[in-house]
């Protein structure tokens, strides 16, 4: 609830000042100018397409999936016969960077996919690539303007109007022309927090190159399913970590209890040792669980990975977190000094351990105790006295 009120504070500021308010310190991320980006709309059942970055020909073109393939060939000679020019090591697919798709909203993305998915050429391949990229939060490949804008800015509009591209175009001062508005949006939101995973692209392109046509996504193998699941989770975790690393979002996360600000306390209880540390916080919420990983920050910018060993609530309502640091705590901490604990950046090992290795991890055995009959009967009669019928 407190985080919602923090968001409401942003909305009220937007209402009062009549301008969008950033939810991130870096809400606007400039795109790399050399990357090709293509704005696409569906109008009257046809694709309207325009290069908005990386290609000099910026004419507005209208047509079907065939025109998309032709535009790619015209933009770069490598696209003219990519199937015939594939190389075994995937180096060619690496060079053949698929253009970034810029669309207004998710409905438009689905309409583009609907038009292109039956195409057996480049348009089919690209639409499948774009659809897979759109599933990955924060990752490049596709810019869907409305959800990105909603994530990065607060505006004073009723919830139903926040889902409209025109509302955002008006607030952010985009051009009234739809294709130019998409170009404006790309110049504001075109930078991506998480780099693209080209492994998937190479696999899709290799399948296309092997047969000379695109047969569709097909049924993925178990290995591919695991790889895709891992990719999605990795993108989600990385995007979440990037989000919480932003100062405005970190301030918001304190109201959710996902970031803790407190002071070093002397109350270590029975624990001793130079690596243990107690942090007292008066925040209203704490989401850290015992035995979870964190990253400790001091006000002068020193940092250390820590494990939150135990979280206790004191009678005065404050939280006391016992943490063990990998390093000697006396190196950077004194009693009473202010510290911040944030979630730790996900590493590859952590993600694999969290997502895949745990699938096969042995389940803990819960010991079953034998209960004497008289105890069972006493429990049953007690329940009966309170008007509860014991189950059979």
């Amino acid at each position, binding site marked *: 609830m*407190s*985080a*919602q*009120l*923090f*968001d*409401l*504070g*942003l*909305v*009220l*500021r937007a*209402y*009062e*000042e*009549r*301008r*969008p*308010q*950033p939810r*991130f*310190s*870096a*809400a*606007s991320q400039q795109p790399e100018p050399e990357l090709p980006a293509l704005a696409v709309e569906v109008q009257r059942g046809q694709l309207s397409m325009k290069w908005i970055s990386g290609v000099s020909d910026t004419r507005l073109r209208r047509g079907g999936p065939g025109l998309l393939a032709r535009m790619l060939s015209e933009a770069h000679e490598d696209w003219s016969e990519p199937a015939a020019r594939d190389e075994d090591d995937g180096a060619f697919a690496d060079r053949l960077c698929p253009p970034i798709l810029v669309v207004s909203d998710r409905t438009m993305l689905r309409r583009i996919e609907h038009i292109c998915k039956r195409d057996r050429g480049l348009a089919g391949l690209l639409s499948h690539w774009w659809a897979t990229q759109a599933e990955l939060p924060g990752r490049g490949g596709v810019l869907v303007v409305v959800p990105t804008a909603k994530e990065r800015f607060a505006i*004073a*509009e*009723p*919830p139903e109007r926040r889902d409209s591209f025109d509302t955002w175009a*008006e*607030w*952010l*001062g985009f051009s009234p022309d739809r294709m130019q508005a998409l170009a404006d949006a790309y110049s*504001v939101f075109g930078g991506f927090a998480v780099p693209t995973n080209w492994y998937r692209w190479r696999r899709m392109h290799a399948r296309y190159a092997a047969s000379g046509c695109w047969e569709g996504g097909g049924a993925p193998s178990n290995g591919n399913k695991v790889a895709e699941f891992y990719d999605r989770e990795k993108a989600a975790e990385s995007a979440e970590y990037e989000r919480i690393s932003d*100062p*405005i979002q970190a*301030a*918001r996360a304190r*109201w959710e209890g996902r970031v803790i600000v407190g002071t070093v306390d002397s109350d270590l209880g029975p624990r001793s040792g130079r690596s243990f540390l107690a942090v007292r916080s008066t925040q209203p919420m704490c989401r850290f669980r015992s035995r979870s990983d964190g990253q400790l920050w001091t006000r002068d910018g020193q940092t250390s990975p820590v494990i939150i060993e135990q979280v206790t609530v004191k009678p005065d309502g404050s939280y006391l977190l016992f943490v063990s640091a990998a390093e000697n705590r006396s190196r950077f901490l004194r009693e009473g000094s202010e510290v911040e604990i944030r979630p730790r950046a996900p590493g590859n090992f952590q993600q694999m351990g969290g997502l895949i290795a745990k699938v096969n991890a042995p389940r803990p055995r819960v010991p079953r105790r034998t209960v004497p009959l008289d105890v069972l009967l006493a429990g049953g009669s007690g329940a009966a006295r309170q008007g509860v019928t014991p189950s059979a």
Partner: protein
Amino acid sequence: MASKHVVAAERSLMTELEAVVADALVGTGIDPARALALAAGRAEPETRAEQLAAAPLREGYSAPDGASRSLIELAEVSEGRAA
């Protein structure tokens, strides 16, 4: 006559504000205009609910002040709407 117009404009603004804050204040008992005054620091909390809500509202309201300069420039692009 002029004051009638002012009253009508204020009423229209309040309706708009109510639509904007929609469900964010449900259960708090705080009305939208009061939330705006609390967030902007023009009013001090009086009830227990207001005391609990004031801190996150104010922190959210002032959060963009620390945002980078590029964002302020970006926001200026949309000044046409403000004008």
